[in-house]
């Protein structure tokens, strides 16, 4: 259960909960793999929290494994890639471009660089923004509820849909 304002919890736990919620509203193309791979790059704290969370929790009814690696295995692509505070972000963007890999970051202006969902704190609340173009290119299906909750949509596919909450 997500904490409310009356029960403040730490930011990392909140991010884990958010990331788990994101997976609820995103559909990956069908594949034969029965494993859901979450790869975390450059955020150990988050990795630990994720490890703790997904030891007992599965995503999409699949066995979920959280890996902490800076290299993307082309033969075993993760479904979810969390990119921490790193410099060469463009390389990862290039590698995952047009592939069914949901990319999440928690640094400023990451969506503009090509990350699909970026988490940030706004007015003491954890919020997120979405790069709709990147999501569209990835062939991932994103439920409107996720879009509905995004504070900002970067590169909206349809200009009319551009919102700024």
């Amino acid at each position, binding site marked *: 259960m*997500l904490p*409310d304002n009356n029960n403040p919890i730490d930011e990392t736990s909140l991010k884990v909960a958010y990331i788990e919620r994101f997976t609820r*509203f995103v559909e990956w193309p069908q594949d034969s793999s029965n494993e859901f791979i979450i790869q975390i790059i450059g955020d150990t704290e988050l990795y630990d929290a994720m490890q703790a969370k997904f030891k007992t929790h599965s995503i999409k009814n699949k066995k979920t494994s959280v890996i902490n690696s800076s290299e993307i295995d082309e033969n075993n692509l993760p479904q979810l890639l969390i990119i921490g505070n790193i410099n060469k972000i463009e390389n990862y963007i290039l590698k995952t471009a047009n592939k069914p890999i949901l990319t999440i970051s928690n640094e400023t202006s990451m969506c503009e660089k090509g990350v699909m969902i970026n988490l940030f704190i706004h007015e003491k609340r954890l919020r997120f923004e979405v790069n709709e173009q990147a999501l569209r290119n990835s062939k991932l299906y994103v439920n409107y509820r996720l879009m509905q*909750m995004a504070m900002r949509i970067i590169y909206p596919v349809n200009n009319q849909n551009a919102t700024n909450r």
Partner: protein
Amino acid sequence: MQRIGNISIKGKIILLILSVTYGTMILWSVFVLFQHSNETKKTFNQSMQMNAKIIADYVVGPISFNDTIETKNILKRINSIPSIIGIAAYGTNKQLITNYILNEHKPNITYSYNIEKTTIEDQANIKSFVGEIVYDNIHYGTIILHANTTEIQDQIQNYAKTLLFFIFLLGILAYLAALYMQKIISKPIQDLASVSRQISENNDFSLRVHRSTQDEITELYNAFNNMLAQIESRDRIRTEYEIQLTKAKTKAEEADKLKTSFLTNMSHELRTPMNAILGFSSLLLEEETPCGQYKSFIEIINESGNTLLNLVDDILDISKIEAGQIDIKKEDTNIHRLLEELLLSFNEIKHQKKAGEIALFLENNRNCKNLILTDPYRLRQILMNLLGNALKFTDVGNISFGIESITKQKVTFYVTDTGIGISSEQIPLIFERFRKIDNEKNRLFRGAGLGLAITKKLVELLDGEIWLESQLGIGSTFRFSIPNVISDSKEITNNLVKRSFADTTKRLNILIAEDESNNYKYLYQLLFKYNVNISWAKNGQEAINLCNIKDFDVILMDIKMPIVDGYKATKIIKATFPTIKIIAQTAYAGKTELEKVLEAGCDDYIVKPINPNKLISKLFSN
């Protein structure tokens, strides 16, 4: 039921139409209202349930990310949805996440922190709906939505009002239709009643009811008209009968009066000659009566007897005429010869009556056609009656008679006298039976008042007509016409006018068949002075027996006799001795009886009382 029965037809028709219309409309309206109410409620419930589901779906996102503000923002959207007055979102732990209540309903609704403690069902017009917040089989919580049912109740009420309005409107239309329909049905009945009333008030059955359409009422009208026609016809017939009965009654009363008068008159007429007969015959029996007066006494007795005979003949004639028993036998008749014979007869009668101051003329143009087809016996009787009448009522002057004209169609006879005449008022009465013109002068004349009545009937039986012109104190002219039916033969000799030579000197063997000794004696006295040999048979059988023993030239055969009657005896004798001349003597004067006599084989007949001249003539003629 009695009260309904007393309502007019107009009222009944209106009541019927309105009760059916209103009954149907009310039942239909209740049904429609019930249906509509259920449908509205059902639609409302479904709509609210749908709203709860949609809102639950909308809040999946915010609740997923624990976004209370956004959740509330979504809940606030109920502002734009009618009837929803409050909504609350509860989490999976049944704890209240957020709620929204329309300002005006805040006093009515309170959402408890725990879903299980939220109870707002008490309020009658507020209904709650639950929508589960589920996405992808994950349950996020529950939406409780409260809706105010006042609006749909208002809607139902409005619908009911509209329906009532329409029922009212239809009711007015139904009433107008009923008014119109009742006119179609009740008006003709009212018309019929009105005509019936007029008929009963004025007793005028010539009235009729009219209707141009064709329905059951028209049938009723026709039946009514037929009934009226029958009543009218029955009334007419009854009136005719009444008139006829009144006439018949008057006639019967008059006839009764006439008969009484006739009987009185008849009594007088019978007693007067009877008085002379009995009186003078008594005088004859008296020894003191001088022999020199015998003849004059006997003449009076004879004359009185003839008067009586005429009276009896007249009564018999009128009876037969009235009973329709007079037979008319038309045959070729020489009218000139008949008139000449009448002249001879009446000159003799005139002479007997010593009416020397009366001249009798026959104006007979013998150049005219002389043969017509008629009944000579009746024609003679008519002329004799008229001449007898003229002779009776004429004291001085003349009597002329004859043929006035002969046309293709008819022959007109006339009898004119210079007698007492009658007034024009009495002319139509003179041919009525028992009618004698009662005035002082007529009382001098005898008669039963039957002669002219018989004459008129006889003329009518000959298909003719009779009329009279007369002036009081100057005289009368009777005219009658009979059809001029042309006879085929040119010359004729009939019985009535036949004249044959009678040789009274020849020797005759006469058998008198007569059971009455007085009659025999009379015949014997009449005949013994001639050259005759007389035998007497007292009945038919004796006559037959005598014929077998002796030769007879003539038999005077009475008809009504004991043992064997005249008919049978004649037949038997004629069978054996066809040359014997048989003359029937009978008191049956009817023509039918006389024909029967001839049929039985008699050569001739003579009617009782026997006229001596006629008898001698018949006996000695060839």
